[in-house]
């Protein structure tokens, strides 16, 4: 084994991919993945879905089993928090004062939850949902007939609501804006999700201003600014995430809403790459700088970063895509809808549970939200990746085969 040492900070989705891709790409030296949690990198999306609903065991969440890392000669340094990156000495410093020297460093630190400092936020029974430990704690408070109040009507909040209904709980979702999913979808899609959640027994309150969380040691109620009091055995706050950039910032790397990386995942230090939720990068398909919170980006950017460390420069140009499972709804999103000026619908949004919303800017198709329509998701993913253009009229006409709408 060579004397070089690639150290990956953050035992995340991106880290698992980066380690595996480094070996596949022929990295001869040591590889270490350092993470503060006690278990190897795991899939986060199921946390708010099957894992919360008790339908998956934590072993099933692992991206790769521990044996894979051993076989690939990737050292897992778990339960270790990195407190600093010393670029001069080329080492990382651990919480216990120890340090690990690197020749190349990869930052895959992900994101941390945005916190609310409401009166009562420190009460027992108030949670954020980001990692396995969070959900394990939440599960100590769930159960049939119990009441949950979820603060935030984004994907995490709505997935959590769906999982808790599955557990037989009374669920209320509070959204500060006039509609759920307001930042990420068209009004028609928001209305659809509100309808389905209500049909499934969830109470949704929009334009909600939370005044305080009530209780003496444990939370018992949530009080709104209009005086409404909602019973709560537990509160889950899901109001977005922030990129985990503290280490990068303290080390003097360029940071601007994420660790700034180029198309080869390189930070402003040539010996340090970064990948996943923590990065701010340029997307060539949409020609703008952005930060993505997704498995797709973690995986694909990690491959780019690994290639770079192996000396093979291949620009990152993947199409973003996402998914969200709630009840019997399989939402698949291809592309980025931000900046759309028109939405074309295929299928009904006010009844049933299957339609697609196509987002356009002028004549250019930007993205699709496909609900229980995998074929349309796959078609758009292909079209956006290969530069096909879409005919809005044909998209809106369900009698026209989806493939005929693209040329």
């Amino acid at each position, binding site marked *: 084994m060579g004397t070089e040492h690639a150290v990956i900070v953050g035992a995340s989705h991106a880290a698992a991919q980066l380690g595996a891709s480094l070996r596949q790409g022929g990295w001869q030296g040591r590889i270490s993945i350092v993470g503060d949690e006690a278990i190897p990198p795991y899939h986060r999306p*199921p946390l708010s879905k099957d894992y919360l609903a008790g339908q998956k065991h934590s072993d099933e969440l692992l991206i*790769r089993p521990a044996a*894979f890392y051993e076989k690939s000669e990737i050292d897992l340094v778990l339960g270790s928090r990195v407190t600093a990156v010393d670029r001069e000495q080329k080492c990382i410093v651990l919480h216990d004062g120890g340090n690990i020297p690197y020749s190349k460093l990869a930052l895959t630190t992900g994101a941390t939850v945005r916190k609310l400092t409401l009166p009562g936020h420190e009460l027992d029974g108030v949670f954020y949902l980001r990692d396995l430990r969070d959900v394990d704690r939440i599960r100590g408070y769930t159960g049939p007939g119990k009441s949950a109040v979820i603060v935030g009507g984004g994907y995490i909040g709505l997935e959590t609501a769906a999982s808790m209904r599955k557990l037989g709980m009374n669920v209320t979702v509070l959204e500060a804006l006039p509609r759920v999913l307001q930042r990420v979808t068209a009004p028609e899609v928001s209305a659809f999700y509100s309808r389905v959640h209500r049909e499934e027994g969830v109470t949704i309150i929009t334009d909600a201003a939370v005044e305080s969380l009530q209780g003496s040691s444990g939370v018992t109620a949530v009080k709104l600014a209009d005086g409404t009091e909602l019973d709560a055995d537990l509160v889950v706050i899901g109001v977005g995430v922030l990129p985990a950039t503290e280490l990068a910032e303290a080390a003097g790397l360029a940071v601007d809403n994420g660790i700034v990386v180029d198309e080869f995942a390189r930070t402003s230090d040539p010996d340090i790459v970064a990948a996943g939720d923590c990065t701010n990068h340029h997307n060539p398909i949409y020609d703008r700088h952005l930060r993505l919170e997704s498995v797709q980006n973690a*995986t694909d950017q990690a491959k780019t970063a690994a290639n770079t460390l192996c000396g093979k420069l291949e620009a990152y140009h993947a199409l973003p895509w996402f998914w969200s499972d709630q009840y019997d709804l399989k939402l698949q999103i291809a592309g980025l809808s931000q900046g759309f000026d028109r939405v074309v619908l295929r299928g009904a949004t006010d009844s049933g549970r299957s339609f697609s919303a196509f987002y356009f800017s002028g004549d250019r198709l930007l993205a699709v939200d496909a609900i229980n329509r*995998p074929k349309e998701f796959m078609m758009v993913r292909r079209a956006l990746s290969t530069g096909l253009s879409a005919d809005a009229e044909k998209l809106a006409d369900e009698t026209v085969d989806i493939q005929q709408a693209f040329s």
Partner: protein
Amino acid sequence: MPLVKFISHSGEENEVHVAPGTTVMHAAVDNGISGILADCGGACSCATCHCFVDEAWLAKVGEPDEVEAQMLDFVLDPQPNSRLSCQIKVSDELDGLVVLLPESQI
């Protein structure tokens, strides 16, 4: 434990033993077999674990459901024996299953 045999596009063969109930996708990913990406981790959402089931095993493996079938229409080089490997669970009955991997997932 049942055995699954993976044959890569270039003809390289790998045999792995997995516990019954494991998906063919996990059998590949857990054992570092390249050619299966499985970006979504088995949620039947990404279609990056496409494989071809050896003809002799097709009847035992069974048909894809509607969601999977729709996704399979759009993978690279779809064939009548195409499946998403995250949707096939290995059982004693599938001991010896032979799966061929495509040239590329996307």
